């Protein structure tokens, strides 16, 4: 019972901190480009403003269009509750494994595409078609890269994987490096960060995600934006806790939880600083290169699995 409360607290923490995380990345990027940047509370203010406004619906929008934002937000928030943040062993993590996590994200993506096509604008259809093309490549790559860990742990459960990484000692494991590289590439594509999609623009011909939600306004837009912010925090936490889990709490005593929370925040800060550095340094790539980029991520994940079998099992 106690653990369920912890799980709920963690989920609320993830959902609540998500806008702050996005604002942090924006601030880092602005500072790197010699701008002052928005305040850290700006994301919250934007969300509050959108929630207060009356949504405008397109004339031909059906009930799918109105339902989709709730499904997207609920699926993403549930996915965030599955990922262990501060405690390793969570009841919800035990109930839903990594395949369920990917499926929840896929559900959110499916509804985004459906809603985009529902209104019948050209931009919506174009964005949906692009998103689905990329998703078909990025989902297998994500699953494969996480499977490298689950093969080592003999389980698809996230807690078991984190335990294995924690307890297998500081060995040099090339398969993990391959899997990490693949998952980083997939995470960048999935969260729509710079080499794949530009999160800062609202109208350009190569946009993917923005094209799909162009028709949304008011509280619907707020929910979708919030879900996206959760997704960024979710992928960051997943990366950190799967590959660099040191510091994460293995029991629910107050001291270890505090240490784990501090370690998580510190690691997040570093990761976001790296992300904004990377985004400032990189240019967006041509949209037709994205399938190749995701294919490379898939290849790296496969190399991770192969090198696990070839190099690490027989030793």
């Amino acid at each position, binding site marked *: 019972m106690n653990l369920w409360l912890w799980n709920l607290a963690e989920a609320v923490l993830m959902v609540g901190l998500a806008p702050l995380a996005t604002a942090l990345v924006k601030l880092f990027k602005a500072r790197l480009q010699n701008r002052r940047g928005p305040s850290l509370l700006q994301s919250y203010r934007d969300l509050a403003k959108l929630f207060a406004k009356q949504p405008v619906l397109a004339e031909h929008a059906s009930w799918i269009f109105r339902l989709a934002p709730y499904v997207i937000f609920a699926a993403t928030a549930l996915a965030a509750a599955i990922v262990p943040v501060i405690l390793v062993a969570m009841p919800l993590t035990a109930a839903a494994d990594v395949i369920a996590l990917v499926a929840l994200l896929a559900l959110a993506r499916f509804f985004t595409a459906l809603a985009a096509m529902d209104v019948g604008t050209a931009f919506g259809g174009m964005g949906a078609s692009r998103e689905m093309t990329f998703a078909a490549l990025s989902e297998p790559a994500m699953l494969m890269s996480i499977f490298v860990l689950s093969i080592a742990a003999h389980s698809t459960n996230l807690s078991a994987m984190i335990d294995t990484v924690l307890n297998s*000692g500081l060995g040099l494991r090339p398969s993990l*490096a391959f899997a990490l590289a693949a998952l980083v590439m997939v995470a960048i594509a999935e969260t729509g960060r710079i080499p794949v999609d530009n999160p800062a623009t609202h109208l350009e011909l190569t946009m993917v995600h923005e094209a799909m939600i162009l028709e949304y306004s008011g509280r619907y837009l707020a929910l979708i934006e919030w879900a996206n912010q959760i997704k960024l925090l979710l992928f960051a936490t997943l990366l950190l806790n799967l590959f660099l889990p040191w510091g994460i709490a293995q029991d629910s005593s107050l001291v270890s939880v505090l240490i784990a929370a501090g370690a998580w925040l510190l690691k997040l800060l570093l990761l976001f600083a790296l992300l904004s550095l990377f985004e400032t340094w990189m240019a967006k790539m041509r949209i037709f290169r994205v399938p190749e980029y995701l294919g490379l991520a898939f290849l790296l994940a496969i190399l991770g699995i192969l090198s696990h079998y070839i190099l690490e099992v027989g*030793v």
Partner: protein
Amino acid sequence: MTQPGLLQQWVVVAAAAMLLIMFALLAQRHMRALLRWFALQGVLLALTSALVAFVAGVPELYVSALLALLLKGLVLPWLLWRIVLRLGVHREVEPLVNISVTLLLGAALVLFAFYVSLPIEKLSQLVTRNIIAIALACVLLSMLMMITRRKAITQVVAFLSLENALFFTATAATNGMPLVVEIGVAFDVLIAALIFGLFFFQIRRTFDSLDLEHLEEKP
């Protein structure tokens, strides 16, 4: 999973890096990047030899490591780059098959190499026995690169990386060949690279292009 010694883990990491570099060579589109990766492969080869020399206690391998560093890490890439500049073909590598397909074929080859080398691994007693599969995969990958490229110069890079992979196999599987053989092979490769250079100029003077399709007999 048992914990092997730290040095042996480094050898394993070097093998993984070797495999990664082979795939990077396969994926490159630009001549300059291709040669850079090729030079990196030579340096990695030298490092691996030095590492195996240290782990297995075979001092002769240090000499071959030095040889690899000088010849494969510096001289050969430099020679090839000079030829590329003088021929003016320093732009794009032209693959016969789409690059993503080539990469997937490559992954299949790694799987095949792993399958084939399973029984060999069981026989071997060396510290580096689990690297045999990777080494075999690297040989197969460079062969794949040879048959999927159009220009003569990329095929030569593929050929030289095949030699690198064989060298890697020899180091990993048998703790290195006798030093005399190794020095002989190294200089053969150097001479081969020089002769290839002559060939490039000859091919270009005859056909006005380095595309090997011109060498085929047209019906």
